[in-house]
């Protein structure tokens, strides 16, 4: 049962992730991203991590993709209004392929995968909270600070500052 579900969900996730990249219509791509995230959330549920699954849905599917759609609609990106290939695209593709190759090489050639323990207690809310507030306190703070900087950056970049007399 869970093996079948795993197959269905992982195929859904990967196929939709591919469609995000290959789709010419930006709205279609955003909807595929939504389905891919839903599949990912399903995989988290299969791994007994419902908290992660619902946070993923709440933050990414519920807010981030909605904002993507919001921007896509405001910019009206009709298909074909962009050049498919630029010199930068080739550089990015080479870099991406190199990273992928490096990842695969290190996985098969170098990685030491420990055996999965026979049984793991299902993490409760308390475990998550304890980890976030003790072991991973610094990363959480750093990521929070990074997000704050990004937010301030967006405000500075997007707001047009006018001198007081111009504003009239």
């Amino acid at each position, binding site marked *: 049962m869970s093996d079948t579900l795993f197959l269905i969900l992982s195929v859904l996730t990967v196929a939709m992730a591919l469609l995000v990249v290959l789709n010419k219509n930006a709205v279609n791509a955003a909807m595929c991203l939504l389905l891919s995230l839903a599949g990912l959330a399903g995989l988290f549920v299969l791994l007994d991590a*419902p908290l992660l699954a*619902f946070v993923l849905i709440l933050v990414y*599917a*519920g807010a981030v993709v*909605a904002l993507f759609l919001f921007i896509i609609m405001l910019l009206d990106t009709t298909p074909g209004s962009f050049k498919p290939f630029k010199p930068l695209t080739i550089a990015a593709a080479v870099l991406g392929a190199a990273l992928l190759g490096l990842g695969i090489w290190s996985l098969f050639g170098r990685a030491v995968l420990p055996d999965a323990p026979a049984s793991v207690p299902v993490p*409760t*809310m308390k475990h998550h909270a304890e980890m976030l507030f003790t072991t991973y306190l610094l990363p959480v703070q750093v990521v929070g600070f990074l997000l704050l900087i990004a937010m301030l950056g967006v405000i500075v970049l997007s707001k047009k500052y006018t001198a007081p007399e111009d504003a009239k």
Partner: protein
Amino acid sequence: MIEFWNSLHPLLQAVIKGLAVIGVMFPFGGACSLIERKISAAMQGRPGPNRAIPFWFAWVPVIGPFLQRLGVFHLMADGGKMFFKEDPVPGHVNKFYFYLAPVVGMIPALTTVTVVPFGAYLNEAGQLVPLVLANLDVGILAVFAVSSLGVYSLILAGWSSNSKYPFLGGIRASAQLISYELSMTLSVLPVFLWVNAPGGEGTLSLFHVVGAQDGAWFGLWMPLCAIIFLVALFAETNRLPFDMAEGEADLVGGFHTEYGAMKWGLFFVAEYSHMLIGSGVFVLLFLGGWNPLPWVPLSDVAAWLHLADQPLLLGLLSIGIFLGKTLFFIFLFMWVRWTVPRFRYDQVMKLGWQKLLPLALGNLIFYAILIAWLQPKFSH
């Protein structure tokens, strides 16, 4: 009968329970439109729908005229019309998303109901057992997560209609719903700070929240949380005075301008289902769920009425108490609709970001300090 029920396959049990809940939710959406018409009529001093009746039903004494004056047959005629009338699809729309949008609206509305407990009964051991389709430990998070997907229905409907007013409606909906989600989530945190006393395993389950309200209801000593949640709820369900996405005064019909027949009807069933679930979650969080009165928990009532060993009757009683409170909030939604005029769009955004969000943050800090001070005194 109970033995027969227990002998069924668990999957079949789940399907039957799910269909039963949907069977209540779906007609309820229609009934809400009747309640809405009757309440708006009462508030404007007119009788409201009170004429239609099939001629053979008029022969039934007392009940016939009563149902006629209640306007039940207007509702049925309306529902029948929506199912059978021609369903025009304008030529300029994106057909796939145009058909998809109303369906997408129904999915979160009917999915969130699975994690909302709507009653409880005492088992043989004398413990309270919730009546719920899926008693998840992440309860409230699941409600927030799944209901946040409702925004796609409005965005897709607005975008796929491919004309100006629906488009504006869709844009407004996406901005408004995301803005108010923040204050909504922040406003319930004090409740869960109190429920998760030190030493516990940690839970976000709505059932435990009701269990923590055997004494004082949270709405009584966290009134600000309740008010922020309620205001955000109005905005999240797109009800007046926040129905920016629809705004028939300035946007014709907003996101559903191009829709007709049952596709249009589905948007309304989804809106009413959202209202019902939102009110239910409010009752569970702040008004004691199925506890009839503050300081009077359900188990005390069961002891007084000698219902402790009759799970069926106690379950029905608890569902009745819970639904009664929820229906009051449905009434409140309609009361507010016909009392408060619609905000301007910039006022909605100002209220969300500059008033509610700082208020919710300050409220959270205040209650975090208060609970840290109070909780040690209660736990001993």
